[in-house]
């Protein structure tokens, strides 16, 4: 214990430990961005080759839902930041509430996503070879381009991987929220909340790129 903070023996002081942990988190975020980067590159290449397929695919997405989800996530970023801020100014209860709202926002996002997915499943819109043109025709949306499945391959992979990150983020935030309720954090020590906060912001940021690419770019 140095200065009221548990410090591992290979660190000099809390500040040293804090700076190291934070650098670790940021490096991990670099890897997350690079991983999604592969998907973005694939999307851009195929969008360039098949603009008309991607336009048709985008026409099946409801931008209202995407827009609401964007707002939900941006708001959750604010509450996430407040979860740190309230700990910094010694209001742990407020911090707990902020974190709870953040998890709730994540849940709202996932519920909306669920409705979007199930609606598409209902229309017979699946990724790649699983897309069902007969079903689509029955539902009054005949498929225009043979490789429409490719667009939805990207759609499901990108939003699916992002959704998985949202779920993981919700789990992690719940974990620090419980630790916060137990009183493990203080104005001197809140590194886990901040680290998970950085993760959450990056997940939000990725959505902010996914939304226009998938829903708006025709």
């Amino acid at each position, binding site marked *: 214990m140095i200065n009221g903070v548990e410090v591992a023996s290979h660190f000099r002081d809390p500040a040293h430990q804090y700076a190291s942990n934070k650098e670790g988190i940021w490096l991990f975020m670099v890897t997350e961005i690079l991983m999604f980067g592969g998907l973005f590159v694939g999307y851009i290449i195929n969008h360039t080759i098949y603009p008309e397929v991607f336009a048709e695919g985008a026409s099946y997405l409801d931008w209202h839902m995407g827009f609401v989800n964007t707002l939900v996530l941006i708001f959750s970023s604010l509450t996430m930041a407040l979860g740190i801020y309230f700990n910094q100014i010694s209001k742990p209860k407020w911090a707990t509430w902020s974190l709870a709202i953040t998890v709730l926002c994540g849940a709202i996002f996932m519920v909306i996503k669920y409705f979007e997915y199930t609606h598409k499943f209902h229309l017979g819109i699946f990724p*790649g*070879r699983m897309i069902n043109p007969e079903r689509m025709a029955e539902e009054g949306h005949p498929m225009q381009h043979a*490789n429409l499945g490719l667009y939805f391959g990207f759609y499901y992979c990108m939003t699916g991987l992002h959704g998985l990150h949202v779920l993981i983020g919700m789990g992690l935030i719940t974990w620090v929220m419980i630790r916060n309720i137990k009183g493990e954090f203080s104005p001197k020590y809140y590194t886990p909340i901040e680290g998970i906060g950085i993760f959450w912001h990056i997940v939000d940021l990725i959505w902010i790129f996914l939304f226009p690419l998938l829903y708006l770019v025709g």
Partner: protein
Amino acid sequence: MGHSSGKSYINEEPGLLSWFTSLDHKRIAILYFVAVMTFFLIGGIMALLLRLELFAPNTAPNVGQILKNGDAYNQVLTYHGAIMVFMVIIPGIPAILGNFFLPLQIGAKDVAFPRLNLASWYIFMIGAGLAVATFFNSKIDTGWTFYTPYSIRTGTSVVMMVVAAFIMGMSSILTGLNFIVTVHKLRAPGMTMFRMPLFTWAIYSTAILQVLATPVLGITLLLLTMERLFGVGIFDPKLGGDPVLFQHFFWFYSHPAVYIMILPAMGIISELITTYSKKTIFGYTAIAYSSIGIAAVSFFVWGHHMFVSGQSELAGVLFSFITMLVGVPTAIKMFNWLATLYKGSIEFRAPMLFALGFLFLFAIGGVTGIILAVTAVDVHFHDTYFVVAHFHYVMVGGTLMAIMGGFYHWFPKMFGKMYNDTTARISWVFIFIGFNVTFFPQFILGAMGMPRRYFDYIPEYETLNKISTVGSWMIAIGFLFGLYTIIRGLTSGEKAPPNPWGSKTLEWQTESPPTMHNFDHDPIVTAGPYEYK
């Protein structure tokens, strides 16, 4: 055990079980050591099997066809490649020697995230276990590159293997991340970046590559998994996707991965050459920067794996030039090592022999790399044994020689015991000569047009293939001598003094083997790492 109180990281926590829960970077290094050596044995046996099959054409009596059929050959080939790349050479130096010596060389008590370090080992073992498990499920036959569209269609356990590689990649990322933060944040007082030993510089450059390149492999393998499970179509030409995109993604990781394999080896060579020449390393700064230079350039050369994939001519020309550019920082290293040897008091101990062997073999591997970078030549050599010989000269002649040299060099520090230099030198003779006997003929075979990955060949290739197979036995004998040396050293080696080689770097200033906290007093650094004379 060398230490005044007899306490060291080996015996400070009692019981076998304590090794699997220990957060100490040295113990985790030993865990990796045991695991990687086991995988090396398996991968090596696969290699011997391949060479045995190629001893004679299939039509030859008795020795003709050893393996059941071409499928079996493809499987052995795949496991040899996948095991050696993902489970031996990539984790080999960083996770074993890097884990053990990076904190010691910069005067730290541990890596920045000890718990993450142990978790990385477990993650690695889960991935490795899954990879080995595919062997008992349905053996995969795609080659270690998992090229689409074949990997989408083949009825073998590709998903399991690909998930295994993804998991091992995660372990690699976390190890790299750990090392970067360790170097940035945990250097002892006075240990500036440019007082760091060159092995640490190399591990640091490697860590940057691990963090920046591996995520792209991650998404590629994830998409391949999705492709097989749900047919998302991104790499499937039948659905409008592009199998060449897979190659781009794959090599965007896997070319830097080649440097993940060779950079740490170069770091070891820097340590060995200067220690056994008893001379300050020539061009310290240039060697340090060239590691970063190689790491940077390595991201822009992936297209040289795809000269015949139908990529545009302009791309081909650019990739060709940038590939040749890698030769510059590499040559800087080579010439600095040679200049270090010049007028040094050279001691021909086993580690030095491995270092000199590295210089010789890596020069051949590197120069043939430049030859392959010439697009016009590559079209002829592509997918022939010339390529096989080239990368084995770099990966085995380079990395494996360095690993062996590094093990012997640091053996006294790791285990507190001396090894027998004579048997180690015998092992070197067999490995060095055996290696050349195995792989030099493959350059000629490649130039004669023998394609790689086939389990049979026309009679014209027979003599050289026979020579090559005999060479593989010599390598095996060499490694058996190596194993004997290590086991003998562990069981009945003499007690090692703290600094048997008169080395100047920090890890030699503490006990052999070090205590749990590495140094009795926190070191304060006042000079560079190689102040010999």
